């Protein structure tokens, strides 16, 4: 079972959180902080498994993480999951994101948290791995996106127009935002 999936950036800011067991919001934040603390002090060339999270899990649980550019993807899993399997799953997840957002970067996750959740929902359900085949996952996501578009139809036209206008400002705004380099994931070595 997967107990939680946490995605946060190099500064510990949560980007996507998915807990498959209920934790109140403040505890969730604490878990993120603790996990960030544990993960961030590790070099990139050490192993991707970590024990010793006190807030989440227990002796049976492990943190399995990968670090991509500015983001940490952390899975908290118990012993029924294969360690290397989960690493592969993280890879599948990130590659799927990359396909869906076309060269995904942190900003995509920041502005489209909901979409990331929908994608994640096709991989993992209720803490269990649902699908690992990327083509199947992407087909499902695309079909749902199509549905969404159909539904939006004419009624959403004004909203779309307005948001288009809003979007026009974005490049300008992005220049104002001081962010660390956001190289696309595709260029990275895993």
């Amino acid at each position, binding site marked *: 079972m997967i107990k939680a999936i946490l995605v946060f950036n190099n500064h510990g800011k949560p980007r996507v959180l998915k807990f498959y067991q209920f934790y109140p919001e403040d505890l969730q934040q604490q878990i993120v902080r603790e996990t960030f603390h544990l993960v961030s002090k590790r070099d990139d060339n050490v192993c991707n498994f*970590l024990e010793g999270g006190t807030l989440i899990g227990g002796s049976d649980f492990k943190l399995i993480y990968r670090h991509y550019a500015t983001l940490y993807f952390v899975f908290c899993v118990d012993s029924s999951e*294969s360690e290397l399997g989960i690493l592969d799953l993280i890879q599948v997840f990130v590659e799927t994101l990359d396909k869906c957002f076309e060269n995904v970067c942190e900003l995509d996750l920041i502005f489209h948290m909901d979409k990331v959740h929908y994608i994640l929902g096709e991989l993992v359900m*209720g803490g269990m791995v*649902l*699908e690992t085949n990327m083509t199947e996952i992407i087909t499902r996501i695309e079909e749902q996106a199509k549905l969404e578009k159909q539904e939006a139809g004419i009624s959403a036209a004004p909203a779309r127009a307005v948001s288009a206008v809003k979007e026009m400002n974005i490049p300008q705004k992005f220049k104002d935002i001081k962010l660390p380099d956001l190289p696309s994931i595709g260029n990275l070595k895993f």
Partner: protein
Amino acid sequence: MALKKVKGTLERVLDKNLQDLVRGIRNHKENESKYIAECIDEIKQELKQDNLAIKANAVNKLAYLQMLGYDISWAAFNIIEVMSSTKFTFKRVGYLAASQCFHDGTDVLMLTTNMIRKEFVNSDMSSVNTYDAGVALSGLSCFITSDLARDLANDIMTLMTSSKPYLRKKAVLIMYKVFLQFPEALRPAFPRLKEKLEDPDPGVQSAAVNVICELARKNPKNYLSLAPLFFKLMTTSTNNWVLIKIIKLFGALTPLEPRLGKKLIEPLTNLIHSTSAMSLLYECINTVIAGIPNHSASIQLCVQKLRILIEDSDQNLKYLGLLAMSRILATHPKSVQGHKDLILQCLDDKDESIRLRALDLLYGMVTKKNLMEIVKKLMVHMDKAEGSHYRDELLSKIVQICSQSNYQFVTNFEWYVSILVELTRMESTRHGGLIAAQMLDVAIRVQAIRHFAVSQMAILLENSHLLANNSQRNGICEVLYAAAWICGEFSEHLKNPQQTLEAMLRPKLTSLPGHIQSIYVQNLLKLYCKVLRRLEDEKDEDSLAQVHTTLQEKLPIFVQSGDLEVQERACSMLALVKYVIKIREKGVSVGDELAQLYAGELNPVAAKAQRKVPVPEGLDLDAWINQPESDSSEEEGEIMGVGFFSTVGSEEHRSSYQVESMRNTPEPTPEEMDKRREARRVEQEHNPHYLKDEGRGKKSRKGNNDVSGIPVAAIDLSVPLHVPGLSSSDKYMQLDDTKPEGRSRKEGKGHKKGKKKRRKGKHSESEEDDVEQLHAVSTVYDAPEGVDNSDKEDDDNKDPYKMLDMNLDAPLRDDEALPVRTHRIVLDDGHPEGAKAATEDKHKKKHKKDKDKKEKKKSKKEKKKRSKSESHEENGPSLLLATGGEEGEEAAAVNNMEEMPEENQVHENNTEKGDDLDFWLSGNDAAVQKQGAGDVSANGSANVEENGGAAAARTVPTVKVSAAEVVLTTDEEDHMHMDAEEKPKKKKDKKSKKEKEKKEKKKKKSKEKRSEYIEPEGITTPSKENLPPSQVPTPMEVKLPPMSSYRLLAENSSVKLTYEVRINHQRSNQIVVSIVFANLTSHTLKDLEFNVLDTLNTKLVRGMGHSNSDAVKVPFTLPAGTQNEGQFAFGVEEITAPQKLRGTLTYILKSADGSSHEKVDFKINLPCSSYLLTLPCKSEDFADLLGSGDLTAKSSINVAVEAVPLSHILARLSFFLHLRVVEQVGDSASLFSRSIQDHPVCLLLKMSNGELTVDGKSTDNSFLSNILEDVRIVCSETTAPVS
């Protein structure tokens, strides 16, 4: 109106969407919370709108805020509104928010039940609906509660059979969550879940594997019966995910079923050799370790592979390699020790995770020889380590490896104490308590080390201010607890007690935690008593006065302590000191009497001793002993003293040494104390529950401490130590190196001259390395009598997984259907929901019925047969019992059968399952593949075919009699295996058998009387003499001479044995020899014992725990003139040659004038034909087989036969040799059979001119020629028919 709406919409267009919100938050970095508060207000406004699009937008934003840590549960109702939208887009938003924030306590969750059900019900209508249902399932998986699980289980079950793989997959997966919340669903849903293991869609299959693996992880034994299925999946699946899960599952199953492990060795080792996927390789290794730890070749392979992993540059593989290595360590420490170099190397790795794993392994690496070296290395690491977590881990590992198995590897305790002392230098460790416990343990249990330990502790106390300084921050001050206690308790070893006394009275100490201070005060008193006595003896009044002054000066600081206990103890002590001073002024010396206070030796108390004291009969612990208002007496206080003085938080430090705190009752005069002590001693002696300390305690209780008897090393401490007061452990290393033999160690070293007496001979060292332990570790623990030392804790934790521990193979009871919500149905036929529910229910039941139907058909058939044969019943001899009342018995049996078909099926099903697995486990791989991994139906249908419906077509299952080896099995129609408790089934079977027999009886006129029989374990007895299977299907209509396959085995004046060999259809390596024992005398034969001289090839199955020369008891006695049948299974290896077995039957003949012990020898012939199975074969298949070229062995014989029709010969051949006629054309015929080890045998018979030519083909030459030899014998024995 419409205009207003449009206007509203337009305004709303300018609402923030999620992106705006995110952007806004990023732009308001300085006052983020204020900005978010504004946004939440806006969202609240938006939620008040009627427009769902606006609400959905608001909810979407809330989901984002939830991630940032804001509570959004107040919007739960709005979230549900959005979830109920008809639009997929909004719905998805709603479910996302719900899955993020709903939980068990969300009260509006019950509103979702019908909404979700509607999604499920409509799921098949269009692709939109498919995704609607998919979204609902995903959401539900996050917030399912037991109510939702109960109400929706049935609908999810229906979805499991949906036409859309996407939904099936999700439905299967969510079932696990349903089971967790609603365990009652597991049994009804399990058959379908099992079905899904073979779903055509790989995703669904993988989901089902996933769910079953999760279930099986917690309760593996219930899933053993699925092993064949998983085995098949494992050999066929190419999906690594599925493979990993299955292999993990096998890892959980194999410890429960050793035979499974054997079966897995081959495929697993193949995978290990061949796979390129590291994840798969790793899991295979794990399963081999968990499941087949006894197969040393595989383990060796694993260790090799693991070494490669550990040496890999990939840190992940290194980590996992070490992890798996630690599992091997548990079973094969030797194999791991070979890689010590590698593991020690990993200790230096830069990665903490890897170092921690390597530390785990160290535990198994140490020996007496290398312990010091390893610990030294760890100490060096500790100095370098920066993270406190890692340092703590190191510390506890050092203690663990040193103290493991009762200090097995510690040869020199002085070294160990030094190590412990060195460890106290570690800053900010949280293991102070651990070190303290070790110090106490060592000081108490290793008597010889006390002197040294005390001197070290005294130095620690001297420097206690160093440790006490930062007591708030770290737990290291705990060691002062141990130091104070050791110095107090063993104060006779102190070199300079006065100095220590003063050290313990420093004002700085008040900064220590209360429980340590109270130990200080307590031990001050002990020390004071000792000092007083000694100084009195020495008549050193000056020093004494000085001591008294110091005490009177310094004790008040403890009296002022905020800690109640410290205060109390200090008060008592101060009063005592004052009293002593007063008495002494009168010139009375009190030293001896005071010393009595702490006379005697303490044993450590086993940690669980108190809990394990049994409550004596008739003692009600809850009842008042005295009425509550009276003050409890001192005596009581002492007995119930556990926890009497313990304050919160200090318990753990005392648990093992409570005795000490009990002694703290203040202010009794020495006389009183003496009296009380005496009283207690008497009481203890008479109290059966009090531990009587043999030998050790007794002698010293009275105060005659024979300290001198304890071997003590006097240590010359004039040698300077590096750190003030702390001894270094390094010297022991050199010491260890230089000394040639542990024995002469002291003499060579200058700084350790002493009278250390070594107890020679007391050490029984059986270690492979001849390093001797220098000190004996006492293992005496105080514990109540009759307490087992097992660490078993009966914790009754409510585990949700325990609820899922249920037998999944037993068929469903009627009440076990999943709840269908009926109370919502209005009594209106048109109500869609009710109708739907009803049909679902039907659907489900149908599924169940199908299964039942099969069973019923069977019984129907039997009923028919019975009615046919009913008329003959009167004439038939009793088959059930040898008593006179056959008819009644019979009727009862019939009734029984009719009354409880249900139950019969239960048993049958059960046995079939167990049998299935059993068969699968015993069968060889080829058979498995051929049979579709233990597919019952294949088995069953084969039998049906074979029997051609002539006889009752029954698949008679074998029952696994005992756990493993002794599985005696049966032929289809021949006989039954029965467990004693399966009475009803037994009757039924007998019944049906009887009918069958009756028919055959007419043909075959053998009559036999039966005496009663017993069914013991491991031996079966048939209810009736049996006909070989081959007779039934013989299609001949010719009159045949009576044939019996029973051959004479042995005969003497009192007993006659005839036997028949039967095939076990389900085991390729077993045959059953059925022996009829007939008593020819008029006396009773008893204690029959059957024994056979095993050959290399053929061995009698004797059951567990018997050696291969033991006789097997025949489980019945033979009254005069009766006969009975017993069956013995033989394991066979090679079947290509005939076997002859010599054996003996011994028995006691009990006649009127006494009994005699007799025996009869016999020889059992097992010709090759006895290994043949009667199997159906179509002529086309026969031709194919002949043409396939597989049959390489050819042979032919000629037999002269006179005037015997071919049909006759064929009948005999098929009867005696289990051959089966494929075709008969004129004077030629083809016959076929297959051996239990799968050698096909094809024979072609041609009759011409009184000569029979038999051409045979098979796969094995010698087998074929032996068969042909058998054919020759049978043919030549054939005589002309009696017409």
